[in-house]
């Protein structure tokens, strides 16, 4: 293994996995991890859950302990990379220094999509992407009693659930005609709609937001129809945009994400990308994807580490996701986009436990599992193996799931 220097831009899930994967793969050279937050890589999913609810601190959430980086000779440096010079193979840092690289991995992530309405910069208006956001929300929460969450995607709904846990009045505003519209079937949207109302959330779908009002700090949110919803805390969760500017300025190919091949390489063989910022071609779903989830960051980082270490690995693991709200543990296997049929096991109209399987052309492509760990793991395996389980048997709660894994067309192991 040539003993050069790998420079990783961004301290994240992907970069923590990269550090481990590079050493496990035999990389003997330097590893320099550059992040613009003060902390080593930490878990971001709990920001809207345990961290927001005050049940954990960033120190509790480090993906790997500081001793790991010491032992594996990873140097962490807090700085922002301002420029990539591919000809010189260097990056410029905002502290004025220039650092050379032999391999460069971009783990620049994504940033919250800004809300382009008047008042979006008032005190008490927050987004939720990093630990500093959660800290800021907690400072507002010291006096806040009425929160408005703009956007009923996973971040918005998780924030709403955490705020209810803290006893805050919560109104959720969603422009689409149902919650989670972009990512789930109508039956699942209806389920989450019901649960949030049962938990005391004032949930409004199909509403436009005209402005956020207040003098120095927010006092309310003005809806498109003129109504004012009082608020002393606003959390905006209307999606993210990938951080591609560094790559773009360096002349790398970018199209809703930094374009990488199946090995995580950009069009420069010395430069790689992984995580929320990277767009790759997924062989299973037969299209280019840019995913925003931990499992994707980990799989891409493993792939990049293997590639840098001269091993043959492609991005192949099935993506999966999770979302904790109230007493609901939602686990999602695969991507439901393009489904043409759903099969329910359990009833989302009553209670709080069921699974929704998504099929496309007879093939199982995804599953949303609420408090159904077994259905989730079944789906991970069945989708991974390309099975088409019998739909009537799958819907029957009496059918043991394991019996549906013995498909004649699939070889064992």
């Amino acid at each position: 293994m040539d003993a050069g220097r790998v420079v990783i831009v961004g301290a994240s899930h992907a970069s923590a996995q990269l550090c481990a994967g590079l050493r496990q793969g035999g990389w003997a050279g330097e590893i320099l991890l550059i992040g613009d937050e003060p902390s080593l890589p930490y878990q971001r999913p709990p920001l809207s859950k345990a961290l927001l609810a005050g049940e954990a601190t960033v120190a509790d959430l480090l993906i790997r302990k500081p001793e790991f980086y010491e032992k594996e000779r990873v140097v962490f440096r807090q700085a922002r990379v301002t420029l990539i010079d591919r000809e010189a193979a260097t990056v410029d840092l905002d502290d004025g220094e220039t650092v050379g690289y032999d391999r460069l991995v971009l783990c620049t992530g994504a940033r919250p999509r800004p809300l382009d309405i008047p008042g979006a910069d008032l005190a008490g208006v927050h987004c939720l992407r990093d630990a500093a956001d959660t800290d800021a929300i907690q400072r507002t929460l010291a006096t806040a009693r009425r929160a408005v969450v703009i956007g009923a995607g996973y971040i918005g709904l998780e924030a709403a659930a955490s705020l209810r846990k803290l006893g805050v009045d919560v109104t959720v505003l969603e422009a689409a005609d149902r919650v989670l519209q972009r990512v789930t079937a109508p039956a699942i949207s209806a389920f989450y709609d019901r649960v949030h109302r049962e938990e005391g959330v004032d949930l409004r779908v199909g509403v436009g937001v005209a402005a956020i009002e207040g003098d120095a700090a927010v006092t309310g949110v003005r809806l498109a129809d003129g109504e004012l919803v009082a608020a002393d805390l606003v959390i905006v969760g209307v999606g993210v945009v990938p951080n591609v500017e560094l790559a773009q300025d360096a002349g790398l190919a970018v199209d809703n994400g930094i374009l990488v091949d199946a090995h995580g390489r950009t069009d420069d063989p010395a430069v790689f990308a992984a995580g929320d910022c990277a767009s790759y071609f997924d062989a299973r779903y037969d299209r280019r994807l840019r995913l925003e989830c931990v499992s994707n960051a980990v799989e891409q980082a493993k792939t990049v580490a293997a590639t840098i270490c001269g091993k043959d690995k492609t991005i192949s693991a099935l993506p999966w996701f999770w979302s904790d709200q109230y007493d609901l543990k939602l686990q999602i296997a695969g991507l439901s986009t393009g489904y043409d049929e759903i099969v329910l096991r359990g009833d989302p109209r009553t209670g709080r436990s069921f699974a929704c399987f998504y099929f496309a052309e007879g093939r199982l492509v995804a599953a949303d599992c609420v408090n159904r760990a077994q259905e989730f793991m079944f789906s991970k395996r069945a989708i991974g193996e390309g099975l088409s389980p019998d739909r009537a048997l799958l819907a029957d709660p009496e059918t043991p799931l394991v019996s549906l894994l013995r498909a004649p067309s699939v070889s064992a192991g």
Partner: protein
Amino acid sequence: MGTITFTEYDGTSHEVEFADGESLMELATSNGVPGIDGDCGGEASCGTCHVIVDDAWIAATGPRSDEESQMIEMSPECAPNSRLACQLKACAGLDGLKVRLPEFQM
């Protein structure tokens, strides 16, 4: 304090020192043991920290919980002593514990 040994599917062993209260998943990831991912951070949500406890130690660790069973039993490599490493906390009584890893995490 004590040590726990993780043995990879290919037979490579890693002896890791622990402080009381750390989970086996945290121990493995913080010590660079390959084959344990712990994607979800220890919530028994992902099933990527499957380990198989050595027969001699199953009385000390106790059996897996229902929650773990739901996750692990769908794995083709599920064994009677299979556990999720994130749900196993290291303690003085587990000094010397040996676990092995499956070939694949699901």
